[in-house]
């Protein structure tokens, strides 16, 4: 599965970038996230409940941030597995400073999906991913609003 | 997963059963393995094939999509309520005469779909019959002889009246 998209954050690039390094913010933004723990500067462990059509299951996995070029770009490597299969993905995230206290986030990525999730849920997975991204960005917008605009 | 048991009372083919079941027990498994009513068959467990169709308060539903606890207080009919080998239900008789079954696995589901259909629509067209059984999969017959059997049953029913 390939993913691609962008989102405009109403905050300066540094603030947005910082938020992406904050497990509390990410953990709160991802729907179904049950636990997200920072292991070190670039590794996180997470437990995530996913529901795709008839398949719903918990996935436990790792999130690794690599090739970090603060505050311009970062590569995310996600590996998760659980009773309903596995997900393995790479995401390339770029933060463009648009100059007016706004930041354009652009992402591309690719995910391999296996097990029940693939054999039964494949049909729905693209739309589930899309709606998940939408929710994540909406929540991050709110978090930013609270953090940035309060300051 | 909690193993808590829930008491249920279900009327199946006119007999009242009181049992204690786990919340996750499928109605299809309950009918087959708890009550021993083996005529209801399980073909896909995701509500597409229709082999497990039963009558739930008179309406055709898939018993693999319902939990046994949801049947509490309801009335169910399975294929065992139609006819016996010695005295077939008229629709069963038509299935026999028109060779509308081969392996027989999907057949109870077809019968339980068609019984309420024929009650509502005693003189269906071929197209209406095909629409009615479009939620039941048969891999053996190609459906032709099932349609013939339903027409046969409908014709005999109107003659009898």
């Amino acid at each position, binding site marked *: 599965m390939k993913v691609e998209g962008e989102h405009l954050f109403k905050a300066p690039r540094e603030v947005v970038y910082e938020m992406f390094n904050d497990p509390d913010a990410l953990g709160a933004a991802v729907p179904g996230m049950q636990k997200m723990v920072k292991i070190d500067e670039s590794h996180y462990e997470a437990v995530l409940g996913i529901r795709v059509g*008839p398949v719903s299951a918990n996935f436990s996995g790792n999130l690794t941030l690599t090739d970090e070029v603060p505050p311009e770009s970062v590569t995310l490597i996600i590996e998760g*597995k659980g*009773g309903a*299969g*596995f997900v393995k993905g790479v995401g390339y995230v770029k933060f463009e400073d648009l100059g007016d206290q706004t930041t354009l986030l652009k992402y591309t990525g690719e995910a391999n*999906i*296996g*097990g*029940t999730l*693939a*054999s*039964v849920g*494949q*049909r729905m997975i693209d739309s589930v991913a899309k709606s998940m991204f939408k929710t994540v960005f909406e929540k991050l917008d709110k978090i930013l609003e609270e953090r940035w605009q309060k300051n | *997963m909690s193993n808590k048991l829930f008491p249920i009372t279900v009327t199946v083919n006119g007999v009242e059963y009181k049992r204690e079941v*786990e919340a*996750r027990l499928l109605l299809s498994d309950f009918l*087959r393995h708890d009550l021993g*009513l083996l*005529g*209801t*068959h*399980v*073909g*896909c*467990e995701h509500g*597409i*094939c229709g*082999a497990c169709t039963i009558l739930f308060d008179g309406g055709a539903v898939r018993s693999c999509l319902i939990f046994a606890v949801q049947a509490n207080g309801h009335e169910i009919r*399975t*294929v065992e309520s*139609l*006819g016996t*080998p*010695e005295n*077939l239900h008229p629709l*069963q008789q038509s*299935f*026999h005469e028109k*060779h509308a*079954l*081969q*392996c*027989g*696995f*999907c*057949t109870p589901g077809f*019968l339980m779909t068609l019984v309420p259909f024929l009650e509502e629509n005693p003189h269906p067209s071929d197209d209406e*019959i*095909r629409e009615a*059984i*479009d939620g*039941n*999969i048969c*891999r*053996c*017959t*190609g*459906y032709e002889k*099932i349609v013939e059997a339903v027409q046969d049953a409908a014709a005999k029913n109107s003659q009898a009246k």
Partner: protein
Amino acid sequence: MTEKYFGKPIKRLEDKFMLTGNVKYVDDIEVPGQLHAAFLRSDYAHARILKIDASEALKRPGVVAVYTADDFGDFWKPGPLQVPPPTAIPGSQFNARTLVPIAKDKIRYSGEVLAVVIAESRYIAEDAFDDIIVDVDPLPAVVDLEKGWENTSVLVHDDLPSNMAALVKQEVGNYEEAKKNADVVISKRMLIEHVAAAAMENRGFIASWDERNQEMTIWAGTQSPLTIRGSVSRALGLAESQIHVITPYIGGGFGPKVMTSLADDVLLPWISKQLKRPIKWIEDRRENFLATTSERDQVHHCEIALKKDGTILGFKDVFYHNTGAYDSYGMTVPLNTQTHTISNYRIPNFYSEIRMVFTNQMVVTPVRGAGRSEGIFAMERMVDFAAKELGISPIELRKKNLLRVDELPLNTGVIGQDFVVNILDSGDYLGNYEKCLEVIDYEKFRKEIQPKARKEGKRVGIGVVAFTEGTAVGPYEGCRITVSTSGKVTMTSGYSTQGQAHQTVFAQIIADQLNVKIEDVRVITGDTNQFAWGAGTFASRGAALVGAATYLAAQKVRAKIFSTASKKLEVPEDELELCEGSVCVKGQPETTIPLGTLAALANPMRGVVEPGVEPGLEATAYYGPPHGSTGCGAMGVIVSIDEETCKPVIERMVMVDDCGTMINPLIVDGQLQGGISMGIGNTLYERLVYDENGQLVTASFMDYLMPLATDMPKKLDIVHNHAESSLKVNPLGIKGVGEAGAIPPGPAIVQALEDAFQDTKLEILESNLSPSQIYEYLKKA
């Protein structure tokens, strides 16, 4: 012999029990004390196993045992080569890598078994999957056949130099020479899609070890109980007499249930013996998609060489065949493809090359149609392309090249799945085709219906194709017929039944031969304690082989009846005749002796019998043909299609079929109609899709679309056109019919679709078409 039953549309004897829910399928059998097995299956298609830790699972209440490959110790070994390749094809190469019961070290397909959980209920057994830690190192998967064949590909089996499972070249005449004389040579690459058998009942297996009697009883939804018995005997080192395999009622077979899959039929008996408890496993639908064998999936590179006048000079086909991760079932499917490609037309020069490829997918074994569909599709398509190129109608081109009645029997020179050279033994191929044109009223469609529809802006097309169905192959089948002292007759056979009406059709033969009421004949199939010889139910061979054996055994019993009666009545045999249920003296209808009485006389409890006299009114007979018999026919379809939705509708279908003598035309029509629905499904709906990582992404009926009642033709006619020669192919003149219906719908529908768009350059190069694929094709056209 008066034929009261044979050839008549006798209603089935088994129906009334099936209709009322009074028969037992495997899951209906409850053995006291039984435990339930569930298989933890691999999420990965290709990976090295680093660790499987099931220790936590054992702590779960209700879990009795968990086994991984290591727990089976020396018992773990690859299974038998169930169907070896024929040795008679010179230069053919075959790498046997047989199915393993449970993955060890390496996972080779998504769905391969990693652990067996035994628990008090199936629910608990599946719960325990969450407790098992599986640590693997994923590998790239081999999915694409042509790329997988290349030497640069990742290897499914590390010990082989490539993914070549087999390479078989068969040539008749000299294609390359013939091509030099051709006016037109056309080359195409075509895809044949991957489809599932999808019987409505999934597989099921119960193994019950009796420690006191040292006997294993097995209930299995198998097409071949004797194969299971042999497999368990070999694996556990038991005498076959210690193993009793019973096939209860089976909810459809269609091919894959002939396979031994080892996880159930080898591991579960072993576990039952270890735990001294009956073990039951019932497959669920997702497992059926992932881990029950499936078929088709070929890529053909075809070439046809013709003269300007349409005479076919030669045909060449190099095709890739997906065997999946293992090849225990040998080359049955691609060999069937080879024999069927050349089975219809006069093709003096023929070259066919099988490139059988290992992939990271479930094993491919025969599914109704079994290689025949693929061969017929490839040839019929190429004839269509040739017709377009030559500007000849596809009908005329076929009529010109179809084999004529006086050209049969024809030795094609191509060795088939039965290891012998394929003989096209009988039939009127051209006659079938002309009959089909007549019934579908081809002329009227061309002159009136199609032009009128076109004027109204509607797209409608016609396709008429020819096909053959190789059936009734050996090696042999047999049966035993016994008359009881009650006068009831029992027939037992090693065959097994999945809905083919064996209880009725074999009873028809016996009831006529012995002149008894059909209700007094009991047919028992699929019980190894009743009859223990035979190969199993496959290749459309039951009616022909078991039917012939039944006839031969009935003849022997009949002779015994007359000799016993002759002695008792002291009347010469030629003065006796069979009256219903008894023997009577010709001209003296009052002098009769019931068959039951004769059965008692034939089994004296005291006194002496003459040397050479066998007791009882009982006889066993076997029948094995020297080669298979070829069913044949033609199919015409009229398809309309809405250009906006690209949804095809089959307005009319005519199938002309020659299956020789029919024991029961009602059953024959049922077989043909069922096959047709499968052929339509294969063409317009069903498709097993593996992604580039080897993940099957269509593992439910939500994604794998089965043909429904509304998908069948609006009008379907079946025409029986049995040639004289077809009625002589074996003792009863029976050819198989079980797969015929599934074979021609593909090429017929595709031809009709192209015809509906004959003003465009629409050219369809695959066997499975969803509306979105048709849309893509039309964009290109």
